[in-house]
């Protein structure tokens, strides 16, 4: 069935790939992102791919005052929102400069909460809709190299879990996607093992799989579920000594 899909962070690698998958499936698409140039390039690209309705709007997640107006002025009633907004910075930088740490918390968690709450309220009233957020396996346990990012994603996971609990009676679904390693701008320059690293296209496909299968939490590659399970059950007394 044709859906109206709002994509937050549409010009990110995963966002773009997801938008193209939506176009391929013939859904109406509303793109939202901060960079106008990338937004219009993506908009044109999608128009060539599909006859469905495409619209794009500038959206800055850090400007929380604008969120309400942004959502209320959207021309279509949204059935599905997917939030690709995220920001990774190493803890070695965060620990020296709280402003960097705060940006990590804001972009990954607090500002995302601002827009998702607005959308959740609307979906709850309409008793319909699906909210999807791209979180991270990093949120499953804090690690020395990037515990600021890990904790922001852990907060997001917990928020989504609570939101899911709240909205279940209203027939609104909340889905948490945990990509694991993925080949995007965020991971440029990192050494990633190729068999554990997904492509943005894999993330798009797994989002649609999660929608269709009724999953609440989805790991893009199944193996990540088991890796994170093992990492989570290591007792803290041992974990604190590990370098992983």
């Amino acid at each position: 069935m044709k859906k109206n899909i709002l994509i937050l962070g549409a010009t990110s690698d995963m966002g773009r790939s997801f938008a193209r998958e939506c176009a391929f499936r013939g859904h109406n698409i509303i793109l939202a992102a901060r960079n106008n140039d990338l937004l219009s390039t993506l908009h044109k690209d999608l128009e060539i791919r599909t006859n469905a309705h495409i619209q794009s709007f500038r959206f800055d997640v850090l400007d929380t005052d604008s969120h309400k107006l942004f959502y209320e002025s959207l021309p279509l009633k949204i059935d599905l929102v997917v939030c690709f907004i995220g920001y990774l910075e190493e803890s070695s930088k965060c620990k020296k400069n709280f402003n960097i740490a705060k940006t990590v918390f804001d972009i990954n968690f607090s500002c995302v909460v601002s827009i998702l709450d607005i959308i959740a309220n609307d979906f709850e009233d309409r008793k319909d809709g699906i909210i999807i957020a791209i979180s991270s396996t990093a949120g499953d346990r804090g690690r020395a190299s990037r515990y600021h990012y890990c904790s922001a994603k852990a907060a997001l996971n917990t928020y989504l879990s609570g939101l899911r609990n709240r909205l279940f009676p209203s027939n609104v679904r909340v889905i948490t996607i945990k990509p694991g390693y993925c080949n995007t701008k965020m991971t440029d320059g990192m050494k990633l093992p190729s068999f554990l690293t997904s492509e943005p296209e894999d993330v798009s496909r797994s989002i649609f799989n999660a929608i269709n299968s009724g999953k609440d939490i989805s790991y893009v590659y199944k193996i990540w579920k088991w890796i994170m399970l093992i990492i989570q059950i290591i007792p803290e007394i041992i974990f604190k000594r590990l370098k992983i």
Partner: protein
Amino acid sequence: MQKLENWGRNPIIKSNVLNFENIDELKDHISKQADLIPYGNGRSYGDASLQDTVIKTRRFNSLISFDDEKGMLHCQSGILIEEILSVFVPKGWFIPVTPGTKFITIGGAVAADVHGKNHHLDGSFSNHIYELEVMKTDGSIIKCSKENNRDFFDLTVGGMGLSGIILSVKFFLRRIETSYIIQKKKKLNSLDAIMDQFESSDDWNYSVAWINGFSKNLKLGQGIFLKGKHALKNDLNRDFQRNNPYKIHNKFRFKIPFDNKIKLLNSFFGKLFNFIYLNINNKQSLTLVHYDQFFYPLDKISNWNYLYGKKGFSQYQFVLPFGTSRNVFKKIFKIINDSKIPPYLIVLKLFGEQKSFISFPIKGYTVAIDFPNHKNISSLFNILDKIITNNGGRLYLAKDKYMSSDMFEKTYSNAADFKNSISNLNNGKNKLSSLLSNRLKIT
């Protein structure tokens, strides 16, 4: 620094890998670096896209415009043929020239000026280009085509990425009525019989032959001749085809999940596969197959190069001019047979006329042979190189890793001009070079 390799998995180098998604980012990268080369999807076989710094183009992958009257597509250079097919086959369009994999970028297709099974009729990829947009390493952007800035166009198509970073390509797609191919297959017991078939099959869009490299003596050069043409709506005879005449390829691909030290493909299995393939196709057949099966049988395994293990493999692709004695080809197959390095896959194909400055094709027969990497491989290639050079042939740069600069200059008639023009770009400050261009002393 990141580990980087091309499809043949040799050499593997450590490289400074940069990405870009808009022109400003690219300009910034170029201004800060020296000695760089663009890297598409890593499907060239040798060292053509390797250098201390590489600029990956895969993120620069948007469609810009499409004229559905003329079939003219304008897209950024990092998009894959695979994606173009997914979008445009359902609209009734096909890529005008395609190599044996759909996982190459359009920028790569231009830089290597790729050819396909229809070269005898349609020429190479550059034949179908309307215009290119290229960023030179001084940061300026130049538009070029067969009509405008012809000199620069000539340096870019087949120029292996040395003239500038290709930003976007405007080219013509081919109209199709269905996504199926009418395929005619025939087993033939000699090279002569196969070449006779090529020379009498002008009316079919596509033709190619697969040759069993393990057959000897009387059967030397035996193989399967395959030709095809795009099926029309009326040719579809099954319901599932008629209901969905523009079906696209299956997106699922099998992936070898480990990087094995031992080769999965050894001489025994190589012989067995070749024997089975030869004999299941014993009879002549006329069938309707999907384009994915006809053009891209190897794409079903996303990393089939891993079959060769960590050492990788080398492909030797040459072309010899039309009219070269068939005995020369037989001699080459004989030398390969005697070398004991197993030729797992041999593909033969006829090129038509081609007028271009530095592209690989010339009218004649091209042969591509896959060998596992082996300690004696370079001495085998040296012997073959002499035969190719003496008979007026040449090697395909996109597959090459061993050719000497001497051979390049002897076999590519415009090599010296190309070298001069590349080094004179941007007042002699062209920053582009690859391991290939260093080896061939172009840069």
